[in-house]
């Protein structure tokens, strides 16, 4: 035990926390997910390839990934702004402001979808303003992006916020005394330190967006090849008792998301190393 510990460092509890984490992870996530892999009766390679190369499936993947990426990026920028203002400044109503951020989590996704549709439909508050300009939001990919932005924004704010809060003042102050401007300090000193958190936030908002179903179906219009999202295809396959087809799409979705997350997590790891 001693040698083990010294190899990992001197802190205790590796076995306990690691054992518990892995077991819990297996019970709640891995074993049920493997059911998806193993239980797919009738899912052959041929069928899987068939599904994976189906034009409609590919189109829905394109819609899902592009809208989720766009929403994630916008969220990353806006989320950073919100987190910055919340951590660095004092202003009246700040507590309310802070509290608001989490509400997209609390609102059932279906309600979010309905509300957003009500706002952006042709006869909605914003939709009716945009309609004369020829901009349609509801029932287009733009609408899906809006819904995903709403769903994803707390992820970015809440991952950046604690890191920003704990950021050491010393370096910043040193930079300032050395004559560095605020913008430069932000770009050179603060942003690199925030980047890992920001990336995490983006990754979470993005991957959440890919899987999102409840809010999107209301605002997307669900037109095949145009605004049909991948999770909807899973639903429609299930509706026809096509478990194999549904698992095929789900697996594909899972695989791609998993790889993307892995890449982002590794990237983030690199960033951290270079930042130190």
């Amino acid at each position: 035990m001693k040698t083990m510990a010294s190899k990992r460092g001197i802190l205790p509890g590796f076995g306990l926390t690691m054992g518990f984490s892995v077991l819990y992870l297996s019970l709640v996530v891995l074993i049920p997910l493997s059911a998806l892999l193993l239980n797919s009766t009738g899912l052959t390679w041929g069928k899987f390839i068939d599904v994976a190369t189906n034009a409609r499936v590919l189109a829905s993947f394109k819609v899902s990934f592009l809208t989720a990426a766009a929403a994630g990026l916008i969220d990353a920028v806006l989320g950073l702004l919100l987190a910055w203002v919340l951590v660095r400044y004092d202003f009246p109503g700040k507590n309310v402001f802070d509290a608001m951020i989490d509400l997209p989590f609390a609102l059932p996704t279906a309600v979010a979808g309905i509300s957003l549709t009500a706002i952006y439909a042709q006869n909605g508050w914003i939709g009716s303003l945009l309609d004369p300009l020829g901009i349609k939001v509801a029932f287009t990919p733009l609408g899906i992006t809006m819904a995903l932005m709403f769903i994803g924004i707390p992820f970015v704010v809440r991952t950046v916020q604690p890191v920003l809060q704990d950021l050491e003042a010393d370096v910043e102050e040193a930079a300032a005394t050395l004559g560095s401007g605020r913008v430069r300090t932000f770009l050179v000193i603060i942003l690199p330190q925030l980047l890992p958190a920001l990336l995490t936030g983006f990754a979470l908002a993005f991957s959440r967006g890919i899987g999102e179903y409840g809010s999107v179906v209301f605002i997307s219009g669900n037109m095949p090849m145009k605004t049909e999202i991948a999770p909807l295809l899973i639903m429609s396959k299930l509706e026809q008792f096509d478990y194999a087809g549904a698992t095929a799409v789900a697996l594909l979705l899972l695989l791609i998301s998993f790889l993307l997350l892995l890449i982002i997590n590794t990237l983030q790891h690199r960033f951290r190393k270079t930042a130190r």
Partner: protein
Amino acid sequence: MAGSLPLVPTQAKPQRSTTRNESSWVKWSLIGLAALVLIWMIVLPLIVVLTESLKKGWEVYVAAIVDPDALSALRLTLLVAVITVPLNTIFGVAAAWAITKFKFKGKQLLITLIDLPFAVSPVIGGLIYVLVYGEHGWFGPWLSDQDIQIIFALPGIVLATLFITFPFVARELIPLMEEQGQHEEEAAVTLGAKGWTVFWRITLPNIKWGLLYGVILCNARAMGEFGAVSVVSGHVRGETNTLPLHVEILYNEYQFSASFAVASLLLILALVTLILKGWFTRKSVH
């Protein structure tokens, strides 16, 4: 640059020096911009919920909320949150400790696996439990013989919610604890402190904000989850309907006002947790 980072973070709140503040016009325009973003993205949908819920007046609003089915849905939703949030919190702290305080192979893989439930469509999050515990699932026949109902009953809803909210606490803590490093803890251990003492005295105070955020997010999501729960709930009124499902039912019955009223109840629940957070914050300051 790396060398200049202090090994031990300063315990006291960083002094607000003038060098860390922008000029006031930058500050206020940033605040204004943030407020606009907030209003556009979050406040507007909430206003829709509130105006819709009050469209038919207070009586309809109150009637929708004191409806026995709504109350039983509320009870179920709270029960599910009370079970899932502590479980995922314990897991989150343990996982973050293992990941950030030690070096081991496959760390990125483990982090990614923890993230996985975010990437899995909620529909699939429900479906996998049906595949495991459903009538035709792995344990289905055995459970059926024992007369234990997991899917379409409380345990199924709890499991699906556990899955959906699984990464929140861990994901909140990992970047934070990585940022903080392990020097403080190591110093304490070198001075002879025991593992639990180190955790309670050093780690916990350092991570309490991240932890709190994680718990709040986890809780909010646990109460608001719709997709996964919809798959494993039997949709029986007064029995396996959670609040979000009840909202959908009312909406589908063309009772728009009542439906939004129940949705606003969820918002109020979220506000209660946030008020609790404020209370904790004040307590910890004293």
